[in-house]
Structure formats: structure tokens, C-alpha cells
């Protein structure tokens, strides 16, 4: 499903009086992959939490609204997000090993929050194949602790595309993967995004990977948008003083 999303007047605070994130407006292109890049502490994860409706559970104070289609969702209210969080917006956490509770079967958790069983089953089989994971019966017998980090990451990914979200937020999806797997994942994600016409926010500090998948780039620094634009932006050393090391090793990525 494709639809427009827009973040307005966002300011998020944790314990200090300085906002961790300060965005007057952010409007990612529907159906495309928008990369949110930036150094550690730039507020990109917080942005991910904001879009996924998770800020109330992170102990943050926030103002601002996420506009999704005809919904206007205040960032500080968990109540208003009921029916949206988990349905229209899905989120892939950073740490794959802790995305699922270790002591309960995996498939059940992947399907949590989804009501429409029939519709999902077919989709599930396809997605699992695309992601290179075992089939549903086996997954329903297995526990998260039996899988490697990479597989769990892909499981979280599959779970994020069920059943039919408008927006998927991926928080550093390749952080725990080695380069070949990262590339694999990036390809998988791109394929899924095109297939489902989902708006994907890809949060990362790996600029090389980011430039490979991005349709559009937003660069954050200290909670503010420093730049927005084409992927080539990421690789222009003259724009970004704080990251000379990364740029020293940056290479143009292969087209996907």
C-alpha cells in the first residue's frame, strides 16, 4: 500500500532540556527507500522510534505529529496509535537477537498483532522464500535462540512486511551483518519494497551501504537535518567535516 507520510514540528526530549531530535518537517517519498544517515547520537534511532509510534515507551517527551494518509498521530500518545502502530507502520529493531523473546516459538511472534490469518499465509510463504528462511511449519516449532543473528534479522524483516504496512522503519538493519550478508539483505529489502510499494526508512551510519540502497537521503546531525537529497550526497566529502575517516574509505557502491 502506498500513501503519503509526513512528520511535522517534531521535538523529542529525554532527560535534558536540549532536544535529541528537532525536525520541523520531514516528508519521505512514498514507495521509496529513504535513508536516514548520520553519526552516533544524531537522533536517527529516535526518529525511527517516532515514526513507529514507540516514543511513549522509550521514556521520551515529545511534541509533533506524524501524518499518515488521513490520520494525524501525535507522537506522545500511545492511545491514538492503536490500530496504526503495528498495522500501518512496522519497525525492525536494531538488535536482531533481541527482537523476539527467546523462550517462545518464532513464527508466533512474527505473526503477532496480525488478525487476518488467511491473507497472511500466502504472503508469508513468499516472503520467507525471498528472505531465505525455513518454511512456516518449521518456524513455528523453532525458538529464536536456535537461529543466528543474520537469520533473526531476516525474520524480523519478513515480519515487518506483514501484512500490508504503509511504512517500514529499519533501524540499522545491517549493523550486525558482515559485508556479503549486508549486501544480500540490502537486495532483499529493495526487492520487497518494490514489490509491496512500501515507504521504507532505512536508518544507518554505514554510508556505503546506505548509498547503495537509497532513493533519497536525509542526513542528520545533532538532532537536526543537515542535508537532504540524492544518494550522491553521502559520498561528497566536502559536505561533512565530522566524518573524515568514513569518507577516506568510501567507495562508490555497486548498482543494485
Amino acid at each position, binding site marked *: 500500500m502506498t500513501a503519503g507520510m509526513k512528520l511535522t514540528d517534531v521535538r523529542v526530549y529525554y532527560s535534558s532540556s536540549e532536544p535529541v531530535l528537532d525536525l520541523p518537517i520531514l516528508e519521505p517519498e512514498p514507495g521509496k527507500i529513504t535513508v536516514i544517515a548520520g553519526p552516533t547520537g544524531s537522533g536517527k534511532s529516535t526518529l525511527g522510534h517516532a515514526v*513507529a*509510534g*514507540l516514543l511513549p*515507551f*522509550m*521514556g521520551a517527551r515529545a511534541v509533533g505529529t506524524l501524518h499518515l494518509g488521513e490520520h494525524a498521530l501525535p507522537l506522545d500518545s500511545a492511545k491514538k496509535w*492503536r490500530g496504526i*502502530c*503495528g*498495522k500501518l507502520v*512496522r*519497525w525492525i*529493531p*536494531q*538488535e536482531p537477537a*533481541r*527482537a*523476539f*523473546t*527467546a*523462550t*517462545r516459538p518464532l513464527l508466533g*511472534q512474527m505473526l*503477532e*498483532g*496480525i488478525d487476518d490469518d488467511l491473507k497472511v499465509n500466502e504472503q508469508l510463504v513468499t516472503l520467507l522464500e525471498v528472505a531465505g528462511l525455513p518454511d512456516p511449519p518449521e518456524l513455528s516449532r*523453532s*525458538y529464536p*535462540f*536456535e*537461529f*543466528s543473528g543474520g*537469520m533473526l534479522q531476516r525474520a*524480523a524483516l519478513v*515480519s515487518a512486511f506483514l501484512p500490508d504496512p504503509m511504512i517500514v522503519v529499519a533501524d540499522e538493519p545491517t549493523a550486525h551483518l558482515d559485508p556479503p550478508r549486508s549486501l544480500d539483505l540490502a537486495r532483499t529489502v529493495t526487492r520487497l519494497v518494490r514489490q509491496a510499494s512500501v515507504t521504507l526508512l532505512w536508518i544507518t551510519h554505514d554510508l556505503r551501504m546506505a548509498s547503495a540502497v537509497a532513493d533519497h537521503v536525509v542526513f542528520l546531525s545533532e538532532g537536526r537535518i543537515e542535508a537532504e537529497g540524492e544518494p550522491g550526497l553521502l559520498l561528497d566529502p566536502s559536505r561533512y567535516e565530522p566524518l573524515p575517516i568514513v569518507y577516506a574509505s568510501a567507495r562508490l557502491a555497486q548498482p543494485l
Partner: protein
Amino acid sequence: MKLLRRRLLASLPTLFAVITITFIIVRAAPGGPFRDEKAVPEAVRANIEARYGLDEPLAVQYVKFWRNLLTGSLGPSFQHPERSALGVLVGGAVPSLILGVAAALVALLLGLGGGTLAALRPRTSPPVSAVALIALAIPVFVLGPLLIRLFALELGWLPAALWGSPRHLVLPALTLGLPVGGALVRFWRTVLTESLDAPECIAARARGLTDLEVVRLHAAPRSLPLLLNYMAPMIAALVTGSVVVEKIFAVPGMGRYFVDSALARDYPIVIGATLIYAVALLVVHTMADLAHARLDPRLHREHNR
């Protein structure tokens, strides 16, 4: 099942220790069961003691006791020689068990319910904590009479004491269960709050689960081991409290017999009661450990993919 056997074997030394310690304490105490009676001629008393085998050397008594025990008998009660000590205790064990289970239910319902509420709705946390604190700090022997005064004497809704119908169970179970429940509230609130902050639970929220679903499917299962660990001290608290509650409410349970028998130096009953309590605690411990093992699939899946 192997685990069960292992745990049972491990508990034997503890049981042995309990029995021996109890035996030593009881026999080392000054006075004997028949010394405090009104003037009994020395000869007669010596006779009675001989009949019960109390004049034999301690070591002999100890061995005899074990022999009896292993054949399932504790000997006759000194206070009521016509009844066997074991019989008296078993008779008393039933009301105690009923009371204990009822109180445990009260404690669990209030404790887990209150704790969950305080964890999910932090704004309710201060009042809930405060009430829980009052509940746990009031001694049972103050709470009981107050409840009696209020519900039985003033309002007349419930019987003040004694035993017989479910209505008799209400006040004693509340008295025994409320303080334990209060402690459980604060424990569970802390544990659950921490659990809810874990990445797994955040991820679950991101999948659209409601508060209660997150608790039921993720936060609570993660916290279960801690709760199971808490069970043993909880049961111990219930057992201790029951001694006084049974006295206040005149419940014909083991607790009441225990204190009276200790004062009367009725050794078989005293040792028997201590044994039963020790066994009960060990059973709870073992069950908690077993439950822990059962519930954690990590402990019985060896293979990794």
C-alpha cells in the same frame, strides 16, 4: 525427570539436618513433658518416662526415632496418648493447607494484579506502592484482630473465628494473604517494569500488541524465573504467619498445635510438625526449580542451527 530425581536427592541432606537439629533442640531443652505436671511422685514420673523411652541415652532415642520414622510412625502424642502424633498432625494439616492455599491465592491475585497495574500505568505506582507498603508492614496479629473487629463485630458480615464453612475462610485468608501480597506487589512491579523496557518488549509493541498482550506474551514470561525464585520465601512467610493467624482465628490447624505442643514439650508432635513444614518448603523449592526448567526451552534444546 532426571532433574527431579537429582533435586530430591539433594534435598535429603537438608531434611536430615532439619530432623536432627529439631531433635537436638527439643531434647536439649530443659524440662520434660511430664515435669511440669502437678505434683507427681518421683517414682511414678520415672516410670512414665521409662515407658516413653525418655530415660534412655539420647543416642538410643535418636536411633529409635529414626526407626519409627522410617516405618511411618511418630509415636503417640504425649498430651493425648490415645492418639498418634502423626494422626494429630495430619488432621491439623488439612485446615492449614486450605488456609495456606487460600492465602496464597489472595497474595498472588493482589500481588500480580497490583504489580502489573503499577508497571503499566506508572501514574498509579505511588498510591499502589503506598497501599502495598501499609499492607506489608502491618503485622498479621494486628491486622487480624482489626479485621475481626470491623467485619465480624461491627458489621457482622463474617464469622469472627473458628472453622467450618467457606465463610470462615475469608478473614483468616485475607489476614494471612494481604501482607504477603503487599510485598509481592512491590516485587512484581519492579520486575515487570524492568522487563517492559527490554528490547524484546519494545519490539513487541512495535508489532502492535496492546499493554496486556505485551505483558502476557513477553514481559511476564521473561520475568517468570524471578517470580518462581520468589515463591519459596513467599511460602515460608505464609507458613510463619499461619502460626499466629490460626491462633487468632482459632483455626484447628497445625500451627496452633505446634506452639501448644512446644510449650507442653510434646516431642513427637513438635518434631513431626517441624518435619512437615520443612518438607513443604522443600517441595515448593523443588517445584519452583522444576517449573523453571520446564518453562525454559533453552534448557532442553541442544541443537543449534
